[in-house]
């Protein structure tokens, strides 16, 4: 598997807090990488340096071998790195199609000289897209405010898929979802990988994480302390590392 993203010795400090103490990892193309870790371990900070929100104090990011200097989330997006935020950043009052095409609407000429949004094209593309991802979204006109939490996730994921993102970052995408909807989001993450898109998936639900990811890593107080293929590790092992493997083994907490 060729490496899409290489993160090398990234450090980030907020005042006295060392949020990242030199994190290194590699992400393959079409690979789903899980990140586990207790609250405050630095997971969000790590992905925010990849999505252009934070700039690392030290270390570097390589995308397909070329150094990435991200100054803003917009630059990350332009490089094909799409982040699905917990707040999702969808426009509630607009339809599914309008959201997926927001900022990149296809145009046609009305009366030969007036540039108008090509709604027919959007309808067609969205119908294809929604068919591909099994989203249970009724149609492209449905306003986002009429969707459930899982369906909103699906819209955000569909947007990344349609615009050919190379890397999709999902920070606790199932945290606020009902069980059925979580299953669907997990399926969508796999669908992204099947299309060759790499995924970083942060999740507190370890069985779910092991189910969806090819590989998992564990963060502990700003360090990467463990990494393994999902097949070769277990929930118990992850928990041991999450709670501090070098400390006294606390076992599985309820």
């Amino acid at each position, binding site marked *: 598997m060729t490496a899409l993203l290489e993160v090398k010795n990234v450090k980030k400090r907020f005042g006295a807090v060392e949020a990242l103490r030199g994190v290194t990892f590699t992400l393959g193309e079409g690979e789903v990488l899980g990140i586990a870790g207790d609250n405050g371990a630095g997971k969000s900070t790590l992905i925010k340096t990849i999505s252009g929100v934070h700039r690392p104090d030290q270390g570097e990011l390589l995308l397909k071998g070329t150094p990435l200097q991200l100054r803003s989330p917009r630059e990350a997006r332009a490089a094909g790195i799409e982040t699905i935020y917990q707040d999702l*950043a969808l426009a509630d009052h607009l339809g599914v199609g309008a959201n997926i095409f927001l*900022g990149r609407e296809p145009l046609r000429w009305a009366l030969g000289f007036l540039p108008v949004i090509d709604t027919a094209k959007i309808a067609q593309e969205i119908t294809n897209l929604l068919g591909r991802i099994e989203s*249970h979204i*009724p*149609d492209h006109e*449905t306003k986002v405010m009429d969707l459930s939490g899982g369906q909103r996730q699906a819209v955000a994921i569909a947007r990344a898929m349609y615009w050919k993102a190379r890397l999709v970052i999902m920070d606790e995408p199932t945290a606020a979802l009902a069980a059925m909807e979580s299953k669907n989001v997990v399926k969508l993450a796999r669908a992204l990988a099947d299309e060759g898109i790499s995924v970083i998936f942060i999740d507190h639900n370890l069985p779910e994480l092991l189910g969806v990811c090819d590989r998992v890593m564990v963060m502990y107080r700003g360090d990467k302390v463990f990494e393994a293929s999902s097949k070769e590790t277990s929930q118990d092992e992850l928990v041991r590392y999450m709670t501090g493997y070098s400390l006294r083994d606390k076992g599985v907490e309820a």
Partner: protein
Amino acid sequence: MNDSSAVRPASSPKGAQLNLLRYLRQLGFALISIIVLVVIFSLLNGRFFSYANWYHIAQQVSMIALLAVGQTFVVATAGIDISQGSVLALTAMTCAILIVTFHWPVLLAILAALLVGAAAGWLVGFSIVRLNVPPFIATLGMLAIALGLALLSTDGTPIFGLPQSFLNISEGRFLGIPHMAWIALVVAVIAAFVLNKTRFGRYTLAIGSNAESARRVGINVSAHLLWIYSLAGVVSALTGVVYVAYTSAAQPTAGNNYELYSIAAVVIGGGSLFGGVGTILGSFLGALLMTVLKNGTQLAGISPYVEEVILGVVVIGAVYIDNLRRRLR
């Protein structure tokens, strides 16, 4: 193992159906209220339902509808423009002074007035996007500035003596409908086209719905807001020009309170002060409702002071309904 069908609600309504219902609910309130008011006022005064009176209503509604069009775009971005009435006054004075005192050709004077409106709107937009002043305060400031300038321009005295060619904007008619109503109609049709069919309209709603999401997809939110407020200024100026023709005079008190009429019109027509929603047809109906209310109370012999009280109550009531609607969705 087919768990996917369990996720889908038994009968999930199509998005288009939900949208249509929502649209009808938005327009329904204004439409029913207009009918009720028309019936009541017709019973109170037989003259209400005459051609002469509806001609008069058409003239009045065109000014409120024009302002409501500008206000619809501003409100759709989750902003508000309370400077409309005084920008109207300032541009009315500008236009009249240029024609009467400086003998400018009518068209050139109108153009200059529109430019003044654009400048006022641009300044408002600049304060909002560059100085981070909230829209309410930015337009409150412009309200004071424009009114002050309008009063300064002639030391508070009105200007008369406009040529017939200019007065024809209001007095002339085409197909029995006053010219000024045609102007409002054309502007409304263009605005509806822009709001519903173009990227400009789509971004207007997107910014009002979720400015952060608009920013993240690369929409230049600041530039867009500058355009919106500048164009709203142009529309206020156009209303100013029409107003002068309608009253055959320009005075610094012109358009007093008109922003309240236009805000009420937008909200009654389904727009939300929280942004992301608004239709030109709805706002037009809202403007008609406000005009019928104004005209009917006058004909019923109710004091203009009472009319102001009613206006205030209607504005607050409309915003209350906006709140209820948001809970309903």
